């Protein structure tokens, strides 16, 4: 059944967000499993550059034909970039969740935030268990 993928070097939350550290910044998005569960995404409400995000708190909303869902920050930090292409093409989260579908890039305020996140294998197991 599992035709969704994970991104090898990323870390994951149990709420289906991924975070990929690149130097002192990190990109954040929704996992392939999450987009598959949500089905066609039709709207994304993103924060703005300069806003701060807090680990475990919602920073964005995605709306699919099924439901509207909050997206939670896997780590705290300050937003340095926002993928504004999603405003016009939210379906990029469906087609390329780890690439063109990234949502925000943050400057991490505490690298320790990443410690309790799941790695790709653990996340795959967590998602698989939910069917």
């Amino acid at each position, binding site marked *: 059944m599992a035709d969704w993928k994970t991104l090898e070097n990323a870390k994951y939350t149990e709420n289906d967000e991924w975070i990929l550290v690149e130097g002192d910044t990190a990109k954040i998005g929704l996992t392939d499993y999450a987009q598959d569960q949500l089905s*066609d995404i039709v709207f994304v409400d993103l924060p703005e550059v300069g806003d701060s995000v807090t680990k475990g708190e919602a920073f964005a909303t995605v709306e699919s034909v099924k439901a*509207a869902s909050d997206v939670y920050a896997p780590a705290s930090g300050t937003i340095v970039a926002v993928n504004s292409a999603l405003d016009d093409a939210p379906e990029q989260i469906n087609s390329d969740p780890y690439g063109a579908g990234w949502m925000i890039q943050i400057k991490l305020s505490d690298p320790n935030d990443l410690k309790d996140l799941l790695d790709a294998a653990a996340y795959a197991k967590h998602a698989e268990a939910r069917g």
Partner: protein
Amino acid sequence: MTIDLILQKKNGEAPPPLEPLIYDLGAPGRIGVNLPDPDVPEAELPADLLRATLDLPEVSEMDVVRHFVRLSHLNYSIDTGFYPLGSCTMKYNPKLNEDMARLPGFAEIHPLQDPASVQGALAMMYTLQSWLAEISGMQAVSLQPAAGAQGEFAGILMIRAYHLANGEAHRTKIIVPDSAHGTNPATTAMAGLEVVEIPSDANGDVDLDKLREVCGEDVAGMMITVPNTLGVFEAHIKEIVDIIHGCGGLMYMDGANMNAMMGVAKPADLGFDVMHYNLHKTFSTPHGGGGPGSGPVAVNEKLADFLPGPIVTIIDEGSDEEPPLYGLTMPDKSIGRLKAFYGNFGMLVRAFAYIAVYGGAGLHAVTKHAVLNANYIRARLKGVYPMPFDRICGHEFVCEGHWPDAEGIHALDISKRLMDYDFHPPTNYFPLIVPEALLIEPTETESKEACDAFVEAMLAIAQEARENPDLLHDAPHKTPVGRVDDVRAAKQLVLCCRPVLDPEA
């Protein structure tokens, strides 16, 4: 044209419209009514409020009637077929209620009339308030809220006002289970309070350990639906109420599912402090495109002074010769009005008629039959459709619309295929915590034959899903409009039957 826009194109071509737009009917200069010559002097309108042309359809009365009657033939309604839309309680709306609502003493009065001249209407409202108090076990009722969500809003504002009156402004958190109706967290946010979501356990009940963890002196209260949105009765409702009361919070019951409780259990007896009714669900007033809602709130003695108003009270008890005098009053510490005038009055008349016809024993029987019908369908579908919570349900139950051996079939495909069998689909993708959820609520008004026919269709579709999955993917086939492109409809919202003229032009 609107319909063209939302239809999925087959073979690259948009299908022809099922019915022309009203602007495409008629002819230039055709009119529907002849207005008489004015018998008062014509007033001069300010020039800046006048325009040279007005883009209205030019049609006769018959053009209009035929257009809308044809459109109505495309509708599916509770008057044409089985409507198992979970959480919505689409029971049959007795036509007697419509007769009552059209009585001139109800239909032709004005809310600004002197209360002395509408004593019958006020007596009806007063009696309905007392019946709703009795059914809930609560002390007082306000009929003001226009629908369930506004009832919730009133309830949470009352809880907030109660804490403020007790000097407990620090109580700002409302606990909401993850299975809740979306209106619960929305209500909390609207009221300026903070939502604390708690998970359900493997049985579909509230996770009591998590509840104890979050319960503290910052908690204003908890909102919970009974039976819950998964259709199951919270097994630990007494513990939940005790935990919340133990930390000083109040209990709000979302009464959306009263059709599984009415006449059997009283929310006040379970320990709730405040609840709302959905008259349009439980008491059969038309809804779902057929009419406005109505969401009265019922409260115990803690909150009675905070009710939204005005409410109907007896101003003068009267005597053996004189009937009581009814009036409209604001409770002492009322949170205020929620809407103009006195609630959705026409819905109040219909609910009153429904309760009057059934009586207490009848309402009890309604509940029992609603629960029986749901459990009958659940038992017949068990083993064919995955059921996340294998237990006796209330008036509705949730199953999953997917199978490991029918890859690519989703709940939506099953629902669309049901339309080919002439059934309204169940609720899809709610509650959110069940994957591919199909929430099925037959209501008590359906016969065993109707329930059986629905089950047979569901069983046939489960077989089709394996043998001919495209039959489901492309469904519906037999409806006036085929599979709509809901992604495109959500992204390119066209709500006007005519392109909006540029206001600057």
